[in-house]
């Protein structure tokens, strides 16, 4: 059972995490959540990303954006690094999303096979 009292515990845990690592995250993971993205299956992808980042405490933020203009490649996940570099992953599903986090965010290795360059 979830209750409002859980929030106090969550707050303490969140504060601990902030103390351990500076708030500057290494990566920004962005999901296209316009109608096209949602229709293609972006909802379970975003859900999976939030769950995995929460469970593994990856050094990234997960955010949303509108239509990227590549609707045919949705669901799209873009990964921005600290230097402004961008990697665009296309046709992402929850399983691929997990792999992307494990490879790109955890180990810093771009998962070439899921990028837009691999399908174009």
């Amino acid at each position, binding site marked *: 059972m979830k209750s409002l009292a859980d929030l106090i515990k969550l707050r303490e845990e969140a504060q601990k995490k902030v103390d351990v690592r500076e708030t500057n995250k290494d990566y920004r993971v962005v999901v296209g959540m316009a109608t096209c993205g949602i229709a293609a299956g972006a909802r379970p992808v*975003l859900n999976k990303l939030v769950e995995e980042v929460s469970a593994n405490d990856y050094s990234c933020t*997960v955010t949303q954006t509108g239509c990227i203009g590549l609707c045919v490649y949705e669901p799209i996940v873009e990964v921005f690094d600290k230097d402004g570099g961008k990697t665009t992953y296309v046709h992402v599903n929850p399983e691929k999303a997990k792999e992307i986090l494990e490879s790109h965010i955890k180990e810093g290795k771009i998962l070439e096979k899921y990028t837009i360059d691999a399908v174009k």
Partner: protein
Amino acid sequence: MQDLAMYILEILMNSIHANSKLIKLLISFITKDDEVKIIIEDNGKGMDEERLKTVVSPFSTSRTTRKIGLGVAFLKSLCESCEGDLVIESRVGVGTKTVATYRLSNIDTPPLGDIGEMMMFAIQANEAIDYEFDFIKDNYHFSFNTKEIREQLGGINLDNPDILLWIKDYINQEIRREDL
């Protein structure tokens, strides 16, 4: 659109992109009135009369007002196919209120869908926006207010992944109770 949560998320996204600070959402199922009612009210930038006219029409919206797109048209189509109605009131600088009603017993009513996930996505889209969400099913009333959540959380943001997941699970737990 597979479920009601997806329809509502589309409208919430419109409110989010209209620079709202507070979004009020009511979802109510009243058996004795045979009515489903959904109200989405924001204090965003609003629309003028000209724009309001095009918003309700499904064929002119997507081209003239990109920010609105198909969300309103989809919801209107749902209401009309379920013996209901969609009414939008809006004033520039004040906000927009969308009221959707349809018949609870109509065979074409969509399933509820994942309302917790819907709220999680809306909150994550812009953490700064507050929500007052009310869910009514006959005599049962559940209220969710992000201002109260923020008080409990101190300075922790609502878009913290752990908090987002808690919000999703908490809302779903409260609106999917077996005694409803």
